[in-house]
């Protein structure tokens, strides 16, 4: 590393500034030429935004094969996150999750993972042909949410599948729940398995104080970190972190199998500046985040009816730790599905939260918020209770159903399939995904047995207004099943 390079630097940002100053003649792509080709777009997004939307060139390095400023920015990120190598990702954390799986598993290899993974992980299995060994996550009966993996369950899966290549861990889940990743790393490593962490919601673990353990700190081998989710970079930008146990060159080859060759400098510079900001101000920013979330939890719990859950859930097993920046609120005791509260907040109160599922809502709080946003959210919840609260009897009381896997995802996805009305699909093998988005955790994945319980659950989600995706039929009236 360049001796002058410190965390106060932002190599990509500095190179772009220099590039703008040089007034380089743009006889390359992109064809908008700094926005001159499309003034409406330029006026809307801002002149600087269009001017730094440039293609790779020698002074700005190349994402597929970084040798100068991108390499330096990645090195600074490695230092900031405590990783051996880091890769800037511009195809979303989906690409980072897939790269982890592609880099550790080939077709037919086994990978141990909780079933409540993001669709990107199972998608990766469809593409590469690896076989999932699902560890059923714990579930909280009251809240109806899937939890982390208990160490005992992971240990059992490892013992029964000594040939598995890797263990994938959500750190944390969408709801902020962490497994004992340190112990899982020890178990996996002593059985020659890699540990891959989906840290889409865990950027802040690396910089805040008093938060759960980050994957790199726990000794995991790879981690997919959505800097854009809680770290302040632009949507779709992400970082893949690696430890000593994986080959940097091989991982880059794997990333380059699917990642664009026209990496966006808007996304890359946002990663560069986000890293600098996180390193320099992260401690303070995440303290503010925790303070906001803690205050909101206390106030929401005073309203009555709602349950904004927090660290009290920790049981040192399948809730090994709780991410206190997450503001999740259980709504069912008030007679409202989470998705109903989510819709009312948006439609009536102009408040957009992250998601609502059957029993809960999740609001994302960050240092970018002000007291105003937090007070409005709490006050709106108080109003929703006053105006819409009702008797909760008769409401669906579980969120997570453990599936039965019949075929591997790739085998099922590429089998001969037929489309059947969804209400006639009971007992058949599903050939595609069904999920509510967000959170994007599949209710059914390719190769899983369709049950009446799952069908009831899907019907209930549709009735409550969940945004359902995954099936070929956009209305989810039909479903593809394996013939």
């Amino acid at each position: 590393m360049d001796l002058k390079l410190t965390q106060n630097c932002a190599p990509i940002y500095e190179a772009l500034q220099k590039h703008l100053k040089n007034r380089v003649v743009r006889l390359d792509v992109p064809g908008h030429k700094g926005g001159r080709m499309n003034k409406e777009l330029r006026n809307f997004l801002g002149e600087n935004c269009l001017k730094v939307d440039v293609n790779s060139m020698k002074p700005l390095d190349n994402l597929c094969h970084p040798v100068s400023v991108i390499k330096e920015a990645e090195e600074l990120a490695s230092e900031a996150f405590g990783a051996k190598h880091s890769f800037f990702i511009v195809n979303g954390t989906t690409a980072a999750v897939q790269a982890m799986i592609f880099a550790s598993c080939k077709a037919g290899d086994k990978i141990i993972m909780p079933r409540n993974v993001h669709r990107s992980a199972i998608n990766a299995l469809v593409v590469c042909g690896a076989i999932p060994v699902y560890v059923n996550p714990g579930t909280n009966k009251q809240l109806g949410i899937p939890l982390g993996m208990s160490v005992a369950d992971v240990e059992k899966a490892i013992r029964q599948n000594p040939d598995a290549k890797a263990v994938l861990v959500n750190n944390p889940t969408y709801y902020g729940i962490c497994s004992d990743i340190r112990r899982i790393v020890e178990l996996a490593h002593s059985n020659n398995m890699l540990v891959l962490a989906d840290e889409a919601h865990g950027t802040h673990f690396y910089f805040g104080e008093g938060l759960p353990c980050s994957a790199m700190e726990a000794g995991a081998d790879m981690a997919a970190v959505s800097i854009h989710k809680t770290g302040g970079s632009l949507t779709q930008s992400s970082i893949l972190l690696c430890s000593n146990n994986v080959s940097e060159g091989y991982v880059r080859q794997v990333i380059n199998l699917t990642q664009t060759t026209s990496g966006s400098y808007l996304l890359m510079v946002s990663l560069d500046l986000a890293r600098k900001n996180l390193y320099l101000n992260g401690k303070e920013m995440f303290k503010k985040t925790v303070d906001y979330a803690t205050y909101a939890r206390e106030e929401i719990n005073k309203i009555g009816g709602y349950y904004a859950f927090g660290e009290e859930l920790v049981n040192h097993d399948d809730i090994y730790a709780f991410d206190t920046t997450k503001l999740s609120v259980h709504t069912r005791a008030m007679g409202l599905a989470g998705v109903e509260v989510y819709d009312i907040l948006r439609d009536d109160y102009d408040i957009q939260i992250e998601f609502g599922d059957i029993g809960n809502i999740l609001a994302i709080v960050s240092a970018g918020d002000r007291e105003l946003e937090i007070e409005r959210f709490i006050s709106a919840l108080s109003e929703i209770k006053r105006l819409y609260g009702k008797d909760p009897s008769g409401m669906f009381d579980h969120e997570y159903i453990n599936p039965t896997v019949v075929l591997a995802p790739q085998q099922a996805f590429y089998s001969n399939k037929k489309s059947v009305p969804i209400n006639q699909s009971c007992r058949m093998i599903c050939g595609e995904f069904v999920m509510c988005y967000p959170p994007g955790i599949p209710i059914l994945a390719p190769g899983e047995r369709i049950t009446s319980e799952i069908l009831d659950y899907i019907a209930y989600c549709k009735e409550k207004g969940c945004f359902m995706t995954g099936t070929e039929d956009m209305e989810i009236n039909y479903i593809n099943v394996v013939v």
Partner: protein
Amino acid sequence: MELWFTEKHTDDVNFTIKVKKQLYSAKSYYQQIDILDTYEFGRVLVLDGFIMLTEKDEYIYHEMITHVPMAVNPQIKSVLVIGAGDGGTIRELTRYDTIENIDMVEIDGQVIEVCKEYLPQTACKFDDPRAHLYIEDGLKFVRRKSGEYDLIIVDSTDPFGPGEGLFTKEFYGNCFKALTDSGILINQHESTYYDSYVDMVKRTHQRIGSAFPVCMVYQSHIPTYPSGHWLFGFAAKNLHPVYDLKAKEWESLGLKTRYYNTELHKGCFALPNYVKEVLADE
């Protein structure tokens, strides 16, 4: 040397007054606070570059925001005032011996301190034994109250800045909850003359209407506010601002006012057509 203060009323319209002296200028946690001494309007309170009050015309605003609801329900005993760090609304309310309790919530304590020092004309009744001051966010304060107040007066700044939360649907709903069965909510309601304000007036009216069965608007003339034509909102659970007016009862109190009278009270709810169109438009 001549010193002039200019407030932007729209992108293309300025309002400019000649300044004798700038008496105070500082930035609080929430906003920029300035006090000017002017030739025409006396002392002027400016927040974030917008005139909040002048010594010359503040009586119009403060009389209209208090006496209208008090004349509809002279039995009002407990009042909540949100905003109003200048003290003018409190000053008018303390003139009623029948009022037993005035809770006042102001988010920015520095405004109160500055007004006490530079605007004694309005900031003169904070030490009335019935007045209780809370330096807190109004939205948060009112959320915790239920059935406690006969009158809530929202004497806020504009909807962009620290007063933003006081123009929301959740705030009006929380106010409904905080009021007694005969409760009245009065709010400063901006103006519809310039296009840039129209959407906010419309949305505010709709939001109040979604919480209160009675939801009306009245007007007054305030020379130093944009266009000079200013609106207030009158919302209530069951009292009508004109049909339920207790003119004789109010007059018997013998309060001397410079702008408000009970005839004007009846007339101020009669609105120009262009305002009615804005309010009626869904």
